[in-house]
């Protein structure tokens, strides 16, 4: 494999990437994928020059990232698709095709990612249609029943059973990656906070890690600990929201409202640290804007004590209810093998038995010194996805209590220098949904020429589609909630 090997958050000189010809590129990427590596990015180094692209592969066993370059020398933008053999690359290829006009040769099924009409010229995308007696089609969205983001879902059903589901997104597309290139530093942080408003800490932390690497800034351990406490608070809060949503989707009002009440305590804990219930304003380049003091530590501890005590009773109540278990078990199943093939990440992957947690596999910040334990389940159904989140809450609580006992002293912000020239960085953080990746590249003046964002939802929407096969359409809301994916994070 002809590649540049780097680690999470390691800054590199992008002139060191060897840009291969089509054959060598294809062979190198295939070689990596055959070793069991996962594709985590496929895009040009310079947004304005689509001829030079990189494919980034990740090996979670050795915590390594491999960058393989390709220079398209012909007059047509094309490369040979990997998706027939490795379905996990499918969506990355569709994205490259849509954003830059590439043609992935022999690609099995090009679909729009965010712009509904681009790949197929000016023709609107034609959904796959099932034929046969008593076959019917159900179309939902972009506007759905609840207060929820927009997306279009097209089901091909026979009776109650879903045979095929296509999910078309892009309604939230607001061009964040382009805005990033021209934004000033203050704007960049706020743009990161607004990639997915339910993952403010996750995305902003990924962004700041990237820029701190590019400016070669070491941040103080105290700030790192504050960041990871915030990250865990976000995880707990959103897992509580998700569990409440799952209970709500099976019409189980009591646990739904009980989880909701606890979530308020958690987001108010974040607010007592930084004034915003979602952690907006907490991050600055070089550290954090707000510090812990006796008062907010006391507040957070007392809030979390209540959560710790009450959640046990709520979990017991929900997960011992036969009515709930009948709905959860064997619903929306994804097997471990399948999950690996399509490249699921985060809670959806962990629920199928895949050990993949960036805090453990690609440790960053405070997690390098204070590790968290891996948690996986094996059944890959709604039950596993829900239960896993309950278990992750326990682990996050443990982590926070431990850190709060022993916060290192030190300053909370370091001075930040200039962006390194001709450099690149790949920054990975485990948001509550899973693996968040931001890749940034600079030119010879230190200007940002590419900023690529990958939310875990980008990998996992496809998982939801497939989980629905052979599942009753009436279970769709429940399955959807159990994946709990972001539209904003996908659409950018």
């Amino acid at each position, binding site marked *: 494999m002809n590649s540049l090997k780097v680690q999470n958050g390691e800054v590199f000189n992008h002139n060191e990437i060897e840009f291969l010809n089509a054959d060598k590129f294809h062979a190198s990427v295939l070689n990596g994928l055959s070793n069991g590596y996962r594709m985590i990015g496929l895009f040009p180094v310079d947004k304005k020059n689509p001829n030079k692209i990189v494919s980034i592969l990740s090996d979670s066993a050795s915590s390594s990232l491999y960058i393989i370059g390709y220079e398209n020398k012909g007059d047509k933008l094309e490369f040979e698709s990997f998706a027939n053999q490795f379905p996990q690359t499918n969506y990355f290829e569709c994205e490259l095709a849509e954003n830059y006009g590439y043609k992935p040769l022999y690609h099995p099924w090009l679909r729009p990612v965010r712009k509904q009409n681009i790949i197929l010229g000016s023709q609107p995308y034609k959904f796959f249609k099932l034929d046969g007696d008593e076959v019917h089609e159900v179309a939902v969205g972009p506007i759905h029943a609840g207060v929820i983001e927009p997306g279009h879902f097209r089901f091909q059903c026979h009776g109650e059973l879903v045979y095929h589901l296509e999910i078309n997104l892009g309604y939230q597309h607001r061009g964040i990656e*382009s805005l990033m290139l021209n934004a000033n530093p203050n*704007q960049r942080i*706020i743009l990161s906070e607004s990639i997915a408003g339910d993952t403010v800490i996750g995305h902003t932390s990924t962004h700041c890690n990237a820029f701190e690497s590019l400016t070669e800034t070491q941040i103080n351990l105290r700030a790192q600990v504050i960041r990871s406490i915030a990250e865990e608070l976000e995880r707990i809060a959103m897992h509580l929201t998700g569990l409440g949503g799952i209970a709500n989707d099976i019409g189980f009002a009591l646990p739904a409202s009980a989880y909701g009440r606890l979530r308020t305590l958690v987001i108010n804990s974040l607010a007592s640290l930084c004034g915003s219930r979602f952690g907006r304003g907490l991050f600055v380049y070089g550290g954090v804007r707000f510090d812990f003091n006796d008062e907010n530590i006391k507040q957070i501890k007392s809030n979390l004590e209540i959560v710790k005590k009450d959640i046990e009773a709520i979990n017991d109540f929900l997960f011992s209810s036969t009515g709930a278990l009948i709905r959860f078990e064997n619903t929306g199943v994804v097997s471990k093998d399948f999950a690996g093939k399509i490249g699921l990440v985060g809670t959806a992957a962990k629920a199928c038995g895949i050990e993949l947690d960036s805090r453990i596999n690609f440790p960053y910040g405070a997690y390098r010194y204070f590790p968290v334990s891996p948690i996986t389940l094996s059944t890959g159904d709604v039950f596993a996805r829900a239960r896993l989140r309950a278990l992750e809450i326990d682990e996050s609580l443990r982590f926070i209590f431990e850190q709060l006992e022993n916060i290192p002293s030190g300053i909370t912000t370091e001075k930040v220098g200039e962006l390194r020239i001709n450099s690149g960085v790949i920054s990975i953080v485990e948001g509550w949904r899973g693996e968040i990746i931001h890749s940034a590249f600079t030119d010879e003046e230190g200007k940002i020429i590419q900023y690529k964002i990958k939310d875990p939802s980008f990998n996992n929407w496809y998982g939801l589609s497939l989980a629905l096969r052979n599942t009753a359409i009436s279970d769709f809301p429940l399955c959807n909630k159990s994946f709990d994916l972001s539209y904003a994070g996908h659409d950018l």
Partner: protein
Amino acid sequence: MIDAIKLRILQRDSIIQDVSTASLPKLFRGLPVIEDKPCPDGCKKCAEVCPTNAIKTEPLSIDLGLCLFCPLCEEVCPEKIIHYTNDFNLAVDKREKLIITKETKTISPEKASEKIRKYFGRSLKLRQISAGGCNGCELELNALSNVNFDMGRFGIEFVASPRHADGIVITGPLTKNMANATQICYDAVPNPKIIILFGACAISGGIFKNSEETERKFLEQNKIDLYIPGCPPHPLTFINGLLDWLDKK
């Protein structure tokens, strides 16, 4: 059953009894005040650092329709002239009222017309449209229905179908990809109907105002009834704004 009762007891009474007197943590960034002190000569620090150009100097003013409550301006001001208070009463009925000057002490909406109060005063059903935001606003709108805020007790609720709604609440900067669906949804709401803009994105485009992927014609063509500033706005800002507007306090 007994477990259910135990769980219910555990819940205690977590509702915010009086939404108008609830207090927020002191770090919460609500209504800014501009002190009546002169700025140092030529100082434009706050305006330069603002990510959305919400600040104008000479005389100093802050446009809450653009403001993200990020506190950068407060942080850089050498004279501590700008200060964000934890006053969450920020809803208004006219765009101009969102411009904060040193004269501003509080802001609030004018009471809605008698007709609107007669129609919607006791029951207001809203259809929410997400149009390109980040989902932060949606989280706060969803929180309105939880046990703490319980907006339903005031007769205000979100409904699934626009045909059952009395108005729409828009979040997000209105992307090109949502322009059509937004219009269709609005057309499906029977008259009389209201439009509420929730969050900086909806009001001004917010941090996305320079995006080439937005299409805000709909907002220019229709009368807006209420503006709820914030990024995202606090649930209390929304409830209190509506209660003031409908004269239900």
